């Protein structure tokens, strides 16, 4: 097994997902399959290949420090389920 049930529970918690017992079993199996599939890459010999994190060799994409127009308050808040005139409203955490 590439992944344990405990790891799946941990990752689910980090993602704030409540998984039922059935889901847990199912997810653990599916994630294991995915990891096994990706693990195929380990069969390649990468001794002389420089590690890379991006698919393209593009570097240094910058923008100048010039202000552009922002959205209006109303536009910013438009998609929010719970809000007032100026802010998003969420359950209090601390």
């Amino acid at each position, binding site marked *: 097994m590439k992944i344990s049930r405990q790891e799946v529970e*941990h990752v689910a918690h*980090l993602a*704030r997902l409540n998984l039922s017992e059935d889901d847990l079993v199912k997810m653990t199996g599916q994630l294991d399959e995915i990891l096994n599939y990706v693990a195929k890459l380990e069969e390649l010999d990468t001794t002389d290949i420089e590690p890379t*994190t*991006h698919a*393209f060799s*593009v*570097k*240094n*994409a*910058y*923008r*100048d*420090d*010039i*202000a*552009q*127009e*922002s*959205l*209006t*308050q109303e536009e*910013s*808040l438009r998609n929010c389920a719970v809000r*007032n005139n*100026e*802010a*998003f*409203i*969420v*359950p*209090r*955490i*601390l």
Partner: protein
Amino acid sequence: MVLRQIRRQRYMMNFETVIGLEIHAQLKTRTKIFCGCALSFGDPPNSHTCPVCLGMPGVLPVLNKKVVEYAIKMGLATNSQINRFNQFARKNYFYPDLPKGYQTSQFDLPIVEHGSVEIDVDGSKKTIGITRMHMEEDAGKLIHDEREPLSYVDLNRTGTPLLEIVSEPDLRSPQEAYAYLKKIHAILRYLDICDGNMQEGSFRCDANISLRPVGQEEFGIRTELKNMNSFRNVQNALEYEVRRQRDLLLDGETIIQETLLWNPDSNRTESMRGKEDAHDYRYFPCPDLVPVEIDEAWIDAIRKTLPELPDERKNRFIEEYNLPEYDAVILTGSRELADYFETAARLCANAKKVSNWIMTELLRELKGEDISGCKVAPEQLGELIAMVEKGTISGKIAKTVFIDMMATGKDPAVIVKEKNLVQVSDEGELQAMVEEIVAANPDQAEQFRQGKTKVMGFFVGQLMKKTKGKANPKMANELFVRTLTE
């Protein structure tokens, strides 16, 4: 009980404090780090947001070049290594002030590493290592409802560029931590890449602190302190935490590794009580942002723009103005204060006098306020000191004039004229009064003639009373001596 106290005292000396600081400096750019929204403080909530900083799906962040430039600047100013190749990573966690569900930061390849600054505590110098500095984005702001269990989210601050500066655990006392924090602050201000306002949060500091028995190599268990929003609070919180940890260790208890909040009202550190989840940020390279590769030409160009830094300015003050090192350290501790000194010193030949005035009268009357809000312009202070030097007013009167200046912002000459404080240096005028006083106090006059020179203080005091403190003290002394010994 007594035995225990004695035992405690004996062991007390044997702990060593180990502190490392994490500083977050908001960079003074015009726009956010990954989008063109303007930075603002105090504008209506959510009026400076766009799809990028709101964390909408499908958007593409683009790095603000100024942020990289400022990070390189700070790296060069702290003898650091600039990593020619660096990149951004995602730090994943959920919190309502973080709309994307991750903070874009740097992880294994930060822009700056292996730097150092020199601090000065009680006249001894020490080099403090800087582990790393990295670029990242700030989160939004939560305003908690006072009655209902709700919070209001303002995302104006989301995406504000931060430079996180992480020190080595080289600091051995709260005092050293304070000096280091001040030094980093001064350098950022000299470079003018950060406002440095701790109250408004543009300069923030967290601390890791642990104790270990002297001689032990490995570190003790540390706690992390947060919520210290002034220089004073940082030192107070660390001092409190040293005492707390020492007491626990002396009682044979173990320190719990946790995050503590400083409560400035109760002067204590308080546990967040398990509000914190086990950290598991699952960092990975950000696929949306391409790596940063810095060439020598850019670094050289930035190096040429570096201004005179606090240590250089301190050395120049010692040489150019002949100031003691102690004065130079304090005056150059802030760019504004150093500028203030130099402006005032230009108007007055005696630089040491200017330094004394700033370090005693001015800093006392400022009561911790920033020099930028001071009502007395440096030119006015220079003028006041020049008036004393020329003998127009006495040093004592000058101090009362100064208090007036701090309150009203008026020119010293105006106050001196309005209140008729010009020093009496007219010999004829003073001589008449001196003779009068000597005649009225024959006993004291006799004592003086018999060698009890201490009564001189009495005589000068009488003259000061008569002139409301305006007699030229040097002249007063001379006139009395001459009159009494005639």
